[in-house]
């Protein structure tokens, strides 16, 4: 059990492989490399979002506003494109990310400077951000024909046989891995969530670290906003409604403790992939796509139960004879 505990990610890899094997048994074409690549591509946005949510959850906070942030940033990106079709795509992406970062900073500042519980802050900004989309558009949609071809084709563009969207998520995963393991900020996320009191004595500003976590999740939500809108070629008030819970689910499945301080980049990625595999597999093995929600619900519950078992610390052993074992 202690081996398993240390290899939470390995356990998850095993679970995903078993899942894929089961699907392959019912529907062999699923494991064709091209199809697996398609599944990954389809999960890319969820992976990027889960990375941001992971940073926030590590610091003992939560970001319920990520999907609303995505929708608002995505809408602004689409509006920019519709208004100035000549605007280069990188500029649009950067503006979406910048807007996302600002929205994240609003969350972070409220948590940091006013000490409002994160769940309340992001519950509030969740409705505010979505409402802002309505104010911005009066409820109108931006459809495919209003978007430039470059805007729509960028994430689909082929680079070495793999779409740019997939590449982007790979780059984000690598970058986040670097941030989490090799920078003081990344380690501060763990410290703040693991023991906020001690973090203060270590010279880490708990509030500011949380602020940066929200900036990160906001920026990634902004990026995902552009990716979502261009991929599905439509932007309206309700895109990605309820997706915030899928993001949290991916993190929970990936072994990121909701109590903070425990988690990893591979965990978040694997958690998102697990959901992605299920979502893509259901239609091919003739299970109604309507079952997806119930299945991910079950998976969340099982994942949290398994994680809780692994996290539960062994009681102090006082008797000598038991220690000898």
């Amino acid at each position, binding site marked *: 059990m202690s081996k398993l505990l240390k290899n939470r990610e390995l356990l998850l890899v095993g679970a995903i492989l078993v899942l894929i094997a089961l699907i392959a048994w019912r529907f062999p074409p699923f494991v064709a490399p091209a199809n697996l690549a398609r599944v990954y591509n389809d999960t890319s946005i969820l992976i990027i979002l889960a990375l941001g949510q992971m940073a926030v959850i590590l610091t003992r906070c939560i970001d319920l506003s990520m999907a609303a942030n995505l929708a608002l940033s995505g809408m602004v990106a689409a509006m920019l494109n519709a208004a100035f079709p000549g605007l280069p795509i990188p500029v649009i992406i950067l503006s979406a990310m910048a807007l996302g970062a600002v929205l994240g900073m609003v969350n972070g500042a409220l948590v940091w400077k006013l000490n409002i519980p994160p769940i309340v802050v992001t519950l509030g900004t969740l409705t505010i951000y979505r409402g802002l989309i309505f104010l911005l558009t009066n409820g109108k949609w931006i459809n495919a024909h209003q978007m430039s071809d470059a805007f729509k084709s960028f994430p689909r563009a082929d680079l070495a046989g793999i779409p740019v969207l997939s590449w982007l998520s790979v780059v984000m995963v690598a970058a986040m891995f670097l941030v989490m393991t090799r920078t*003081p900020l990344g380690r501060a996320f763990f410290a703040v969530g693991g023991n906020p009191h001690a973090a203060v004595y270590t010279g880490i500003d708990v509030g500011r670290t949380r602020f940066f976590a929200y900036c990160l999740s906001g920026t990634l939500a902004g990026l995902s906003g552009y990716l979502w809108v261009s991929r599905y070629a439509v932007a309206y008030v309700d895109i990605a409604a309820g997706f915030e819970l899928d993001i949290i689910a991916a993190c929970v499945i990936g072994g990121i403790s909701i109590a903070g301080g425990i988690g990893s980049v591979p965990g978040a990625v694997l958690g998102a992939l697990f959901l992605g595999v299920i979502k893509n597999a259901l239609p091919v093995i003739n299970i109604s796509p309507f079952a997806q929600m119930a299945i991910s619900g079950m998976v969340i519950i099982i994942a949290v139960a398994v994680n809780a078992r692994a996290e539960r610390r062994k009681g102090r052993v006082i008797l000598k004879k038991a220690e000898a074992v």
Partner: protein
Amino acid sequence: MLQDTTTSRMKPAIALEGISKSFPGVKALSDVSLSLYPGSVTALVGENGAGKSTLVKILTGIYQPDGGSIRVADTETTFPTALSAARAGVTAIHQETVLFDELSVAENIFLGHAPRNRFGLIDWKKLNADARALLHRAGADFDPTIRLRDLGIAKKHLVAIARALSVDARVVIMDEPTAALSHKEIHELYALVERLKADGKAILFISHKFDEIFRIADRYTVFRDGTMVGEGLIADVAQDDLVRMMVGRAVGSVYPKEDVAIGEPVLTVSGYRHPTEFEDINFELRRGEILGFYGLVGAGRSEFMQSLIGITRPSAGAIRLDGEILVIRSPSEAIRSGIVYVPEERGRQGAIIGLPIFQNVTLPSLSRTSRSGFLKLANEFALAREYTSRLDLRAASLDQDVGTLSGGNQQKVVIAKWLATKPKVIILDEPTKGIDIGSKAAVHAFMSELAAQGLSVIMVSSEIPEIMGMSDRVIVMREGRIAGRFERSELSAEKLVRAAAGITEAA
């Protein structure tokens, strides 16, 4: 102690002068001064609430003083953040080993100042190698890559000390470092303090234990009610003088044990065992008796007591109360049968600091103060008034939140809460841990009074003077088993320590 004469001529590593700090309604520190010298241990003593922890927080940059100056190596400075204090070489090792369970030992040592490579990224190889070297200097040789959660509390202390060495600290603050350590671990800690001294660190040592102060400190500073009331060389002072300075008044006997006629057996415990925590626990508790349970921290005393009230389940064993066999599966059943347990961790297990005093007191007795499930506030206030006045509680009103009281008064509320259930047996786990001498005496006096009224008391304590001063009989536990039984007449500190540490007479 040879250095003591030299310290007066040395320049202090850090000097606080005229420091004041107020909080709404409280003057925590007024005009205090403190100098710490390289290669010297200064003991800071004072009752709880004397301002020691406020001073530590000012030294480590958590709080900002309202007035006064801080000089490091003769340069006036300020610590606007914890980071700035750390950069100036001030490091603190705290009572509850405050480190990060989920991070590796090496990371705990270097968090906030990890070595980086030329890209500005953390250099893990160097980090682990440096950590190994620092652990070695601290006298520890375990793998720096393992997670902190896999270490025992003493080893965590070593990690904290390695951390202090890593920042090249000039000033090391040790805030009750031995509070959670066993006998052996404490001696290892003393050795470390000697090593830090030899390294030329200035050490501030905060402790309630006089024996250790006289053993390792070179200088002392006494705080009372937020002011500095005395300082000097340990060699020039006697224990009684320190106590007098701390308390500022003559203390009556801290251990007012009355002789009580011991009655018939009330509680009989036989064959109690648990798979990992204790076994073969047999004893009788009689009416009017105070039965002391002595042992080192981690000997299984609290675990056993908690199994008596149904927090954990024993794997075998029986309890008889007044001759009848009892099965206790939960604290509520224990309370109903008349056995209550006043837990050791006041803040976590005892007081509910967000609720008012009267609600704390009546919580286990609600079935008595209420009528068919509905609250009767008048009854609650009456019950709370009765028991808090018996314990000489100091508070502005019974509707005041318990969190606003001092530690000693919180403990009085907690004890009142349990007494209000009218128990037959009361188990007090470290009843005076971390409370000031005045409150300590009040708790002890009340304990005697209870025994005189025919209540049976079990007192778990790790303080030898308290055990010897208050108990009619003492049971010593070691590693989950009973290691000795002593009548009051045959008690001696040496016997208790030998039994608790497992040293046989022959050896």
